[in-house]
């Protein structure tokens, strides 16, 4: 009888504990930002996990990759299957760990890294850290990335249990928190964040002199790690600087990247030097005064880079892969639907996103 009572008590405690954990897990899911209203960029990292991981090229980096390159064009014109693992203000160590994680899933022919992030040598802002880290799947790469990224005010435990950080949102919940509780639609097209609107580049300020143009040791350390990892895995690392006009890319920074690429035999393309060849017109091809390209700009740049990837990097067309072609047919339909949707919103005077 006593044994039966003890067993009942233990069962009760276990059930209680399980229910409490379940409630906390549901609460955590509820209060976690869904990034589905005005800041869509926070959800991008998660979208990669649903992809079939069979890409020829994976882009890694900050907004200068996810807003400036269209994988749809790379596929349509060159048969290159690509994906962009981009996030807002992605720092070099975050790019490294995303690269490390990507190479656990697949072995693309090339990893393309945008070098603007080299300007940062230390952790910057928790808001941006969260957008890159919260939606990574748990792995040693994520753990190391969190540790490398935390500012002095952040705590590792709050990444493990985000409810500890976001609990105060319980009083600020929006419809989106309930609507997207279980599932969220993709906000990108293979990582590309589309914008069809136009805001010409005007009054771009002259660059401010810097007291020191030297990239930091920490930034170089992670770039070295990325280069060594790609070398070990037999994946070509290609360095690029997207043709965004602002923030300013200093010649002194460019020299350092050229020197680095020369030293290690890497390809480095600074597309700011090729604006005319690409055909970019910054009165038409940007939606935010030259910081990022809009759809027409991104498609021009992707066409230009696709030609380089095919002819200089030897990445051949896979248009004869039936399964892949069928996947892309669906993706292109979704891409075209979003173009129509954004133009329709523009015509109504609404925000396109």
């Amino acid at each position: 009888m006593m044994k039966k009572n003890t067993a009942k008590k233990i069962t009760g405690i276990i059930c209680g504990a399980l229910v409490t954990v379940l409630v906390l897990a549901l609460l955590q899911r509820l209060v976690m930002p869904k990034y589905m209203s005005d800041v869509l960029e926070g959800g991008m990292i998660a979208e990669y996990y649903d992809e079939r991981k069979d890409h020829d090229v994976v882009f890694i980096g900050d907004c200068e990759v996810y807003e400036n390159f269209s994988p749809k064009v790379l596929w349509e014109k060159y048969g290159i299957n690509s994906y962009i693992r981009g996030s807002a203000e992605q720092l070099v160590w975050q790019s490294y760990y995303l690269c490390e994680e990507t190479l656990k899933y697949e072995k693309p022919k090339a990893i393309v890294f945008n070098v603007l992030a080299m300007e940062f040598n230390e952790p910057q802002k928790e808001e941006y850290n969260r957008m890159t880290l919260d939606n990574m799947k748990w792995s040693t790469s994520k753990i190391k990335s969190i540790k490398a990224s935390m500012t002095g005010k952040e705590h590792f435990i709050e990444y493990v249990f985000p409810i500890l950080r976001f609990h105060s949102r319980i009083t600020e919940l929006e419809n989106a928190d309930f609507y997207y509780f279980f599932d969220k639609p993709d906000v990108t097209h293979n990582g590309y964040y589309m914008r069809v609107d136009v805001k010409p580049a005007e009054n771009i300020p002259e660059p401010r002199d810097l007291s020191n143009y030297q990239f930091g040791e920490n930034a170089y350390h992670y770039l070295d790690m990325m280069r060594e990892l790609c070398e070990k895995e037999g994946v070509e690392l290609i360095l690029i600087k997207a043709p965004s006009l602002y923030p300013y890319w200093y010649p002194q920074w460019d020299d350092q990247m050229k020197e680095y690429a020369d030293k290690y035999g890497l390809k480095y393309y600074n597309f700011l030097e090729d604006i005319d060849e690409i055909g970019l017109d910054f009165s038409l091809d940007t939606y935010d005064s030259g910081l990022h390209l809009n759809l027409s700009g991104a498609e021009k740049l992707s066409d230009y880079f696709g030609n380089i990837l095919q002819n200089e990097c030897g990445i051949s067309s896979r248009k004869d892969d039936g399964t892949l072609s069928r996947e892309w047919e669906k993706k292109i339909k979704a891409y075209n639907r979003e173009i129509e949707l954004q133009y329709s919103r523009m015509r109504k005077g609404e925000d396109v996103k």
Partner: protein
Amino acid sequence: MKKRFLVLAAAMVVTASVVTACGSGAAGSNTSGNANSAQASQQTGGEVKTGGDGYIFKANGVSLSPDADMDALKEKLGKEKSVFEAPSCAGQGTAYTYDYGSFTVETYPAEDKKNRIGYITLKDDMVSTAEGIDLSATKDQVKAKYGEPDASSSDTTLIYKKGSMKLEFIFDGASMKSIQYVSSVLA
């Protein structure tokens, strides 16, 4: 059985309350008004710098300092030659560059949602620091006025730290290229 269920339910409610109620504490003290972009906007939890504790630049009778609220000073400063808007990635506010000809003011979106000054750059010798140094000054003249520079200075830059800002005199060889007032938030 019913009693056990009630105890369990009470435990759940208490747990949920404890977790959510402490939202008014540290992490919640800087909550963004917008829940979706809270995201993490609520987080950084650091104090907001408001400036005025370091070197000050005076223009048109207005005192400007890093971290001061630019929106409160714009009107007094007069019409700028141009303004450049740079929205931060992922809706983290907008930074502006105001060009007044001889000097520019660059701002950053602060945690308190104000448009705070990040950099003031003196670009020609029509303007000078409040201590009387302009771009025609030599390194020796700067040192005579401000004393020995901070250890972080280099061959090309003399740096003076004061309060939560620093003042930089940037040289190209013997001639000065620019003078910058820099917020520690951005440095």
